[in-house]
């Protein structure tokens, strides 16, 4: 069981495996062939199936325009699930073709970045919190793989970070992609 101070020390080290995966997925052939190069990579969603650990990455639309503070956000347009152990692609879903919640609009702009909760946060602070959260993902994947429980303190810290950083306009879509995970860690 890991407590908060240990989680913090881990976050202070070099980039986590999750962070490297988020960056590296852009260079994978399937990404370059099917995912818009402009797309953002969303918060990873852990998945355990038949004893193996997988990670689902949502790809959402956002416009990297030069207008400060008004980056447009669009719903996730696809997800890719990879084997956490070897990063092999096991599933790709086009969410325009197979939306998990058809009652949501998966095509139109849903909001902007940054949301009010972080708009006055510096870039440095945002990067630090993001790095910490992604490091905690590493821990989560490892613990899930070992079938170890997550301590309440650890889970609370993970939840605090996720709630701070997740883009509110995308929350309905995250919940649709994995109701259980986000029901547990999102308010």
């Amino acid at each position, binding site marked *: 069981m890991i407590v908060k101070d240990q989680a913090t020390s881990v976050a202070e080290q070099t980039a986590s495996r999750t962070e490297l995966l988020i960056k590296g997925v852009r260079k994978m052939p399937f990404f370059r062939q099917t995912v*818009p190069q402009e797309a953002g990579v969303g918060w990873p969603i852990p998945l355990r199936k038949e004893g193996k650990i997988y990670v689902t990455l949502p790809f959402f639309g*956002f416009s*990297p*325009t*030069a207008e400060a503070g008004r980056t447009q956000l669009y719903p996730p347009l696809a997800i890719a699930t990879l084997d956490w152990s070897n990063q092999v692609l096991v599933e790709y879903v086009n969410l325009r073709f197979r939306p998990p919640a058809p009652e949501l609009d998966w095509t139109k702009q849903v909001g902007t970045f940054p949301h009010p909760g972080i708009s*006055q946060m510096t*870039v440095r602070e945002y990067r630090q919190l993001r790095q910490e959260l992604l490091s905690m993902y590493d821990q989560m994947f490892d613990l899930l793989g070992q079938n170890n429980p997550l301590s309440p303190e650890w889970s609370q810290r993970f939840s605090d970070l996720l709630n701070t950083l997740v883009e509110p306009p995308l929350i309905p879509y995250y919940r649709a992609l994995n109701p259980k995970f986000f029901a547990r860690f999102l308010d």
Partner: protein
Amino acid sequence: MEDNWLVQSDDDAFVDQPSLEDDFSADYDLGSGDNEGGMAIDIDGDGINESFYQEVDDDGDGYIDTYTLESDVDGDGQADSIYMEVDTNADGYTDQASAVEIVDTDGDGQKDTWAIATDLNLDGVVDESMTVADSDADGNADVQLASGQVENVAASSDATPVDVDGDGINESYYQEIDSNNDGYIDTVMVESDTNGDGLVDLIVAESDYDGDGIADETCIAEATDTDGDGYQETWNKSTDYDGDGVIDESVVATDTDGDGVPDTENADTQVATDSENLFDTENPDVVGDPEGDAANWHQQTESDTCAVVCQEFILDEMTGKDFTEEELTQQATENGWYTPGGGTPMEDVGNLLEANGIEIEKEYDCTLDDISAKLADGENVIVGIDADETWNPGGIDSDQVLSNVSGMPEQGSNHAVQVIGVDYSDPDNPVVILNDPGTPDGQGIRVDADDFMAAWEDSDNFMVSTVSERQVARV
């Protein structure tokens, strides 16, 4: 065109008389509605049926849609003119007409060249013209020639259709010509229809007058549509008279009467100086044509159409047609190359160029030298960059609050821009010149090479570039 009943007093090839259907269907009772028929006719009243009139259901829908009158006026047993009217929309009225003159250009007794003039809306004005030839004497046309080039075929050795751009379509016509009539081939000319509209828009000719195997004179003429009416009326001709690689004369001429032949020269016949040398690529200060290319820039109207718009810039320049972001976005969407609310997958960048007749290549791990070489060759280049690194040279200020920065930190998403020049005025600190559709000041925006390379690295230095269309046949 021969002066027969098919020709009127005006310059087109279309009769002022009522349509063929009106002329013949009623008089000769060739059937009505869906019955095809044909009849030999004596048009010129000499007692010989030199013409054959026929009604045809060309599209097989059960209704007559094509009316043709084929004539052998010179009595050699081969048709020498065809007049055709077509009902293209099955409303019972013809709406398109073509007049074809068939000639024997090489004097072997076999007619081998068809000059075709088409009036697409029966307004009496020729809208399209082309000349096709039977180069292999099998009775079928297999070569498309430029308008008004029949005489050149007669003056040259066998003409050969060639696929210069390697797309499987013979868009060019290769000729060897004895330009000075001394009995020896001295000029190689390649005429190309680069945009597939049926009209030659690029002519490259190299002449070796002394027979030493080295071109003594090179002339390149390129047509553009400067007034946006869809017809490439302006010809830019550059000539190197002494084979030194330096343009000696640059002329702009206009085809004012639409016959495919320039008939006026515009004001300035310029003699190029060394500083305007198009061929000398040794240490130029600026590689590429940033001023010219910047003219095609506009800001993208949607948040994620950067790749579409970059391709629009290039298509506008290379085809002379004014493509719109809307039509290209639709084309890209229909083909799955663009997702609204998402953008364009990196490896689909360039597909719009290919689909609209521009040959391209896509490569990773390219260098600034690769870009410069492409621009020096007159090619066009699109790259994928992390826009944060060009919009925020030196990196985003970490002490800035998020509401004062653009994009999302750490996402590293890519953005397509057109590279239109590299300025080597300071060789140690080159500047890359871009057409960036994603920012209001993106027209010809200048980015230090270091910042550009850092931004480009995120895409593994991915580059889409056009392939040279000026593949000159060497003498």
